[in-house]
């Protein structure tokens, strides 16, 4: 959808901001450009809608060379969101959102309908439509910025640290909503940030840049974390690379073992045989498919059943959609050292062991 071919940007004075960049952004994906300041990530983004022009090389959007198009026309088809938002202080929220439809000459009825639809889409209360930007909170202004960029339904969006100016709690919520929104609208997005965690969270693919606009690696987040190309990437990913990777893998993607399962009526001998087979000193009690808890072998007396022994609960359980990071957390907080996987209604699906986690990190 967006493609850079041997693109270089050299500023007057000789500073190279982007160095011989070749990169393809597939349709409907979020590509995050990340790197330290001065790595050319913002310059790279700005060349897509000609806010900055390349010194050499070719950039195409949907197969058409951007340098062959009228800048204003090109820009009306490319959504743009920046950290400072840049709302028009002299226009109401509704008028701000209507900016591009107005430039494109939409009639009033269509514009009004679109504005209402967008405000709802980004979660703005209807009451703010006639307010001015300075009357809104920072988080609300960011939402207006996103709504304004989406107004004419552009196929391509450029976002430069769009959530950089709000506090961490609001940022987390905006990120989550953004991902939900993107699942709905499926735009082709170039997203710039200096925050690797945000990159991992938001990106279908991540391009890591170093000083002087050199592309160090371009890969999906999981691949990046599993197989960093060089020392620069390793250092940039930070010390918790393994944990970050686990956060991206879902429980449903790894094998759950059946585990030392008994039903409540099992006697002491049966329980011991089952535990032995799995190498544990406890059994998992499952009654008619439903998880009840676990029982320590030492607490089952001779001649008694599992049901007579004190039943302990698993404080944390995981289900298919949880991450392996959540599974690891459950594991290290349980005396059994494993995590149980359940589906809705506490239906037992097996256990996850540290071996499974270790295999993923290696």
């Amino acid at each position, binding site marked *: 959808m967006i493609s850079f071919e041997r693109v270089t940007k050299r500023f007057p004075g000789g500073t190279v901001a982007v160095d011989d960049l070749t990169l393809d952004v597939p349709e409907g994906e979020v590509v995050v450009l990340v790197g330290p300041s001065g790595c050319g990530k913002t310059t790279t983004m700005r060349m897509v*809608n000609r*806010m900055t022009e390349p010194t050499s090389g070719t950039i195409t959007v949907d197969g058409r060379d951007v340098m062959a198009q009228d*800048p*204003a*026309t*090109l*820009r*009306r088809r*490319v959504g*743009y969101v*920046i950290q*400072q*938002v*840049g*709302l*028009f*202080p*002299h*226009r*109401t929220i509704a008028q701000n959102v209507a*900016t*591009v439809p107005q*430039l494109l000459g939409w009639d009033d009825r269509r514009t009004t309908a679109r504005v209402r639809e967008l405000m709802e889409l980004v979660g703005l209360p209807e009451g703010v439509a006639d307010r*001015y930007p*300075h009357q809104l909170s920072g988080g609300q202004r960011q939402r207006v910025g996103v709504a*304004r960029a989406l107004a004419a339904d552009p196929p391509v969006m*450029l976002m430069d640290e769009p959530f950089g100016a709000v506090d961490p709690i609001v940022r987390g919520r905006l990120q989550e909503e953004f991902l939900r929104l993107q699942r709905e609208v499926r735009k082709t997005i170039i997203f710039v940030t200096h925050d690797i965690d945000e990159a991992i969270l938001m990106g279908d693919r991540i391009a890591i840049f170093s000083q002087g606009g050199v592309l160090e690696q371009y890969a999906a987040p999981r691949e990046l974390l599993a197989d960093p190309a060089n020392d620069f990437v390793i250092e940039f990913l930070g010390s918790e690379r393994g944990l970050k990777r686990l956060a991206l893998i879902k429980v449903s993607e790894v094998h759950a073992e059946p585990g030392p399962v008994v039903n409540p009526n099992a006697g002491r001998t049966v329980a011991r045989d089952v535990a032995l087979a799995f190498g544990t000193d406890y059994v998992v009690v499952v009654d008619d498919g439903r998880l009840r808890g676990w029982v320590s072998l030492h607490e089952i007396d001779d001649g008694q059943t599992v049901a007579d022994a004190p039943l302990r609960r698993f404080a944390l359980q995981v289900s298919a959609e949880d991450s392996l990071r959540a599974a690891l957390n459950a594991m290290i907080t349980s005396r059994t050292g494993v995590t149980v996987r359940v589906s809705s209604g506490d239906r037992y699906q097996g256990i996850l062991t540290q071996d499974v986690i270790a295999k993923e990190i290696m």
Partner: protein
Amino acid sequence: MTPLLAQELVDWSWVASHLDDVQSRTAEHLVLTVVPLVVGFAIAFPLALAARRWEPLYGPMLAFSGVLFTIPSLALFALMIPVTGLSRLTALIPLTMYTLLLLVRNTVEGLRGVPTDVREAALAMGYSRRRLLREVELPLALPVIVAGLRITAVTTIGLVTVTALIGQGGFGQFFLDGFIRRFSTPIMVGLVLSVALAVVFDLGLLAVQWAMTPWQRGR
């Protein structure tokens, strides 16, 4: 000869019998204020735009209009007489020149004050330069531009009182009358009218600004 202030400050019967004079002096004063303001702004505005476009022009432009501003008005009127005689132009041309410094400076500063991110966002959404100026930069610069117009208007109203010396009327005529005849009433009338006119212009322009900048209310 009676000293100037020995009599009563205002002789109301004189005022009553000179209402026609008051009217025509006011009309003259208005013309001598409004024409330089309008023509001055018409010259200053494109100059300010040029200074925005080509930054190096701004320094020399300010220096030149600053020098014009420092020339004493009476001297400038006197210098004009050989060129334009004792016509109204002799008053209008210097008065217009005096407006340039304040109008150019405030227009440029107003446009400069438009936040970079707002300008950037407008361009990135596909505004042409002309439309950016008309729909974004000018509305946002308006308070600073109007501030320039207000101070220019008040300054000009004061300056116009001097033009009576070259026979162009205005409230200055009352001052001349009063000085020559050692009679305080016309002086007081001219003073009050002059101040009143300045206040009317100042508040009028402020009202125009209020009406044109709804987003600034209740801030």
